[in-house]
């Protein structure tokens, strides 16, 4: 024995390490689930084994049975505790209505004990042992409909009594089970709750009491922790159950093969992991797409303070003539310019600015320390260009920003059918709150002439305040888009292959 280290709060819990048991019939190695395990059905040869301290003794052999909804080791979570299917049992009952059977899954947890999940008479039932007893001398000898109370004060109606006979068992149990074992039972229904049952069971030397409740499909779905796609939906037992004479159909989940040899289970685990990752990839792709949409939405955020469409010909351009040599440079609008205005002399190589449209827009209010986004758009621009010079004017005559945007759109050749933007976006940081307007000068030309004239098509200026800086949003959108495409691609490519491999 090796001592396990202690912590400040006592000894560390020893690891749960199932021991291996060799099947005496076929030599297959089985894992003993618990040191309480007294009985194991070999998953390879279906031999029924009684486990002793040293070796396993073969009690009998039985034919495997298929058609169970849950496999050995399938997991459930009830009330925050994890349970696995440790054993599956089929009990047959004979009464005046004929033969019927109950499928019972023993759900085991090394920390919380045992629950029983039964499929009986078209219902899923979850039961646990209690010690509350009925106020009657013999619960197995009551007449149908008899009223009985239990010592905790609950009222019950007697439903039926009978004897169940164990017809099939697999998995492992903390007691030795033998096909043909008989259990006497008496079932009661709660007087005021049709979903609550109570049962007294008696076999040789022991009487047990169960509190039972009907489990809905939704509860079962929530509790089942299986990773198998084919069983992600809870079983519709009424559709898959065979006849009531103990000959179930194969229509339900076929699990016998799944729980075959260890290598199959490892492969199955690998496939389950692959499927899980693929689904996670799909989920991540959806998240990325959502992120992309949100980034796009955020990029459009803000409050529109101005929309102005400038139409060609409505504003006759002032006659602009080149200034005579030596004449003092003059600001035609007597703008009181800010620091950002370029006062350098005009480039003599540049053609003189002639034509175009110049106008003042309506005023609008801008808050302090905000980003102003100016969108320029000429959607019908074709084989032409347009240039927009903007002065953002604070109050009457203080130009705080001198901005410009260029639009051009030309039809190219076959390799590059279109070029040039029909839209442009300009940003301006506003420090001072107050009333602003634009002094706008637009000009353009059709064809590829550089000589400006009137704008060839309408140009719309939209100013939006409280805008978001587009650069990080664009990066986010681009990354999200790429990630979504890659993940979705992985899902589409890998999923059929994973299905094939699993098959």
């Amino acid at each position: 024995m090796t001592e396990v280290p202690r912590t400040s709060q006592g000894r560390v819990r020893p690891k749960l390490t199932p021991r291996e048991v060799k099947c005496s019939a076929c030599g297959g190695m089985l894992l003993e689930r618990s040191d309480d395990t007294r009985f194991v059905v070999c998953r390879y040869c279906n031999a029924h084994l009684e486990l002793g301290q040293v070796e396993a003794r073969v009690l009998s052999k039985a034919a495997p049975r298929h058609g169970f909804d849950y496999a050995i080791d399938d997991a459930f979570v009830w009330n925050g505790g994890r349970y696995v299917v440790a054993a599956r049992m089929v009990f047959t009952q004979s009464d005046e209505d004929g033969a019927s059977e109950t499928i019972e899954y023993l759900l085991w947890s090394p920390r919380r004990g045992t629950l029983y999940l039964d499929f009986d008479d078209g219902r899923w039932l979850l039961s646990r042992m209690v010690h509350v007893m009925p106020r009657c001398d013999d619960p197995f000898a009551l007449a149908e409909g008899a009223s009985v109370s239990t010592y905790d004060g609950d009222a019950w109606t007697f439903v039926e009594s009978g004897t169940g006979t164990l017809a099939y068992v697999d998995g492992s149990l903390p007691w030795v089970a033998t096909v043909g074992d008989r259990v006497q039972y008496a079932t009661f229904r709660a007087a005021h709750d049709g979903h609550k049952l109570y049962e007294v069971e008696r076999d040789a030397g022991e009487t047990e009491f169960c509190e039972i409740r009907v489990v809905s499909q939704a509860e079962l779905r929530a509790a089942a922790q299986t990773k198998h796609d084919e069983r992600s939906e809870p079983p519709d037992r009424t559709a898959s159950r065979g006849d009531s004479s103990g000959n179930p159909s194969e229509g339900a989940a076929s699990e016998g093969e799944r729980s075959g040899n260890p290598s199959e289970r490892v492969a199955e685990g690998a496939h389950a992991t692959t499927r899980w990752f693929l689904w996670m990839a799909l989920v991540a792709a959806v998240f990325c797409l959502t992120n992309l949409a949100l980034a796009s939405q955020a990029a459009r955020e803000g409050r529109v303070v101005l929309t102005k469409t400038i139409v060609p010909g409505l504003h006759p351009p002032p006659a602009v003539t080149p200034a005579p040599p030596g004449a003092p440079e003059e600001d035609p609008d007597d703008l009181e310019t800010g620091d950002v205005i370029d006062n350098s002399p005009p480039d003599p190589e540049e053609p003189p600015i002639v034509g175009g449209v110049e106008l003042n827009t309506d005023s609008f209010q801008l808050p302090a320390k905000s980003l102003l986004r100016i969108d320029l758009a000429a959607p019908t621009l074709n084989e032409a260009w347009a240039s927009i010079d903007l002065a953002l004017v604070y109050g009457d005559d203080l130009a705080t920003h001198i901005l410009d945007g260029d639009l051009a759109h030309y039809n190219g050749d076959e390799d590059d059918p279109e070029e040039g933007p029909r839209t442009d976006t300009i940003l301006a940081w506003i420090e001072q709150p107050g009333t602003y307007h634009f002094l706008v000068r637009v000009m353009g030309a059709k064809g590829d002439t550089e000589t400006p004239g009137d704008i060839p098509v309408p140009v719309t200026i939209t100013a939006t305040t409280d805008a978001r800086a587009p650069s990080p949003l664009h990066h986010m959108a681009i990354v999200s888009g790429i990630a979504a495409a890659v993940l979705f691609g992985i899902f589409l490519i890998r999923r059929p292959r994973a299905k094939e491999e699993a098959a």
Partner: protein
Amino acid sequence: MTAREINCPNCGAPRRVENPGTLMFVCEYCGAAVYWDEGQVRASGQKAALTEGFTRLYRGATGRLRGKRFTTEGRVRYSFGRGFWDEWYLRFDDGATAWLTEDNHEICVEAKLAGVTDVAEVPPPQGSFTRASFRGIDFMIEERGEAECIGAEGELPFVVRLGETYRYVDGSSPDGKHSVGIEYDADPPNVFVGDWLRHEDVALDDEGEDWT
């Protein structure tokens, strides 16, 4: 009484026994069952080791039982033929001790009734529940059988010998709150009475996150 520093008479491993009520322990290194006999520490010659990890409680586990801090000192495992149950020996921080029975992870805490001398043989059920009454509490018998001690670990307040057998009867109060155990290993039989515990009545410092 102060803690006792002793060495396992089988393998020589040192051991510190703090509980003055300890009359037997199982060596953590060699699994030998060691007991005190007229002041001498002796090895019983039996290996009493038990596998660990499958029970909710475990040797050395600390926690609270209904708010009272305890340390799990030892365990005795009994077989009833078709299965097992464990008796955990708890020592509380105030020095009190108790036995906690874990049967298929159902837990009850019991204490021995002193001075019970009139325990009649419990008859087998014949179509109805068999009743018994101790200290004003009515009990109904749920189970009877023969127990065999098949292992022990940690420190215990009495000497158990592997293979010892005795007859027992277990029951509960009809409201499901109290438990009773009658052990026919002495004359008169020993009677233990206690309470069934809910899972949340016992809070361990290390519950084992793998299964919670």
